[in-house]
């Protein structure tokens, strides 16, 4: 009877070789370096998709954190409920043209309306004595994703914003994105003692009046280092991971 040669103790049969990290990273670089710059429409589409991902994560948080809460898609007037229609650039919260999502609590009360790409009238416009609904373009800013008070104006003033999100899908200059979010913070509320948040189910207290949290949501992991100290001003920095595993 023959005997099998003794195998080295560390070898196991039928086990795939562990991936060579450096080689795999090299291959990944090869792929990235062949990538073409996107066309304007492609870039716009990718940005929109990231905004929809961020919006979805916001809705998911609502469902998870509000017992009995419901989310209902409202298509634009006469539209199909199975198609979501969004603006490609800053727009009005126009229920005849764009989709939005109602946030409904356990008693059936609508407590917020979630939109993408809405322009709001800035705090500085109000501070300067500007008439509501008359803000020129220079006094309006875009929120990529936002929650508005139910029944808010199509171009809402800052105090009808319950929460706002600036979405950045892997951008250069992360610090500039943080500064932009701080600018949105300045134009949506006054700094104040921490008060009950406009969306307490997500952020309990916000140091602002109105107490609307402003988020910076980025697909760049590096953004996490900026979480503090801007949260002391009511700006909340979040890394939003792509659903890689579900994409294939």
């Amino acid at each position, binding site marked *: 009877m023959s005997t099998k040669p003794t195998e080295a103790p560390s070898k196991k049969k039928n086990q795939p070789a*562990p*991936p060579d*990290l*450096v080689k*795999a*990273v*090299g*291959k*990944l*670089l090869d*792929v*990235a*370096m062949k*990538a073409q*710059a996107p066309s304007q429409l*492609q870039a*716009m*589409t*990718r940005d929109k*998709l990231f905004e*929809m991902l*961020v919006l979805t*994560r*916001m*809705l*998911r*948080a609502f469902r998870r954190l509000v017992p009995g809460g*419901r*989310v*209902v*898609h409202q298509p634009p007037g006469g539209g*199909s*409920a*199975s*198609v*979501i*229609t*969004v*603006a*490609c650039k800053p727009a009005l919260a126009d229920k005849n*043209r764009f989709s939005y999502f109602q946030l409904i609590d356990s008693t059936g009360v609508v407590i917020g309306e979630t939109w993408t790409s809405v322009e709001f009238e800035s705090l500085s416009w109000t501070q300067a004595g500007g008439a509501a609904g008359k803000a020129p373009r220079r006094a309006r800013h875009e929120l990529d994703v936002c929650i508005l008070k139910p029944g808010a104006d199509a171009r809402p003033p800052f105090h009808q914003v319950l929460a706002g*999100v600036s979405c950045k*899908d*892997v951008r*250069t*200059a992360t610090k500039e994105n943080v500064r932009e979010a701080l600018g949105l913070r300045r134009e949506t509320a006054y700094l104040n003692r921490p008060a009950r948040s406009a969306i307490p189910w997500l952020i309990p207290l916000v140091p602002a009046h109105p107490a609307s949290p402003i*988020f910076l949501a980025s*697909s*760049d*992991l590096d953004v996490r280092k900026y979480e503090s100290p801007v949260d002391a001003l009511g700006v909340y920095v*979040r*890394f*939003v*991971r*792509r*659903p*890689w595993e*579900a*994409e*294939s």
Partner: protein
Amino acid sequence: MEINNFKPEDIEQALHVIYERATTYDGPLFREFMQLAQLAAPRSSDEDKNGEVETDAVETEPETRQQFEEALSFLMVLAFPAHKGTEKAVLVELNEVVNSDAPIKSLQMLVGDRRVKLSSHLGRRPTLARSELQSSLLAFLPRSTEVDL
């Protein structure tokens, strides 16, 4: 394989490769690769990200891993920009949270008065080989964060 199973020098070497190649890139995504080079740049041995003096080699290991995670995360998005599969994945997540009898099937944007389906301007899913490459490296990225937003 989890990142913890690799020796620190493997991760350092991978970072070095990213840095070297990103700094020599000369193509249409120049600004993005400059950002990548910044993420992967060697950090001063006497300063950590908080500006405090760091001299213990063992203590710098988690920071090297974190730096690698950040650079790799950025590189992954450069290599695999959003595609049709990404839209499908977003729709799956959306349908899990929206209360509706009819599932949401597509996303479109209004460009002027023209309705443009997002899928018509998204690339195809990666090839099988590229999907496998992507999967092998996902293990080195953080899993879903605990906070939804």
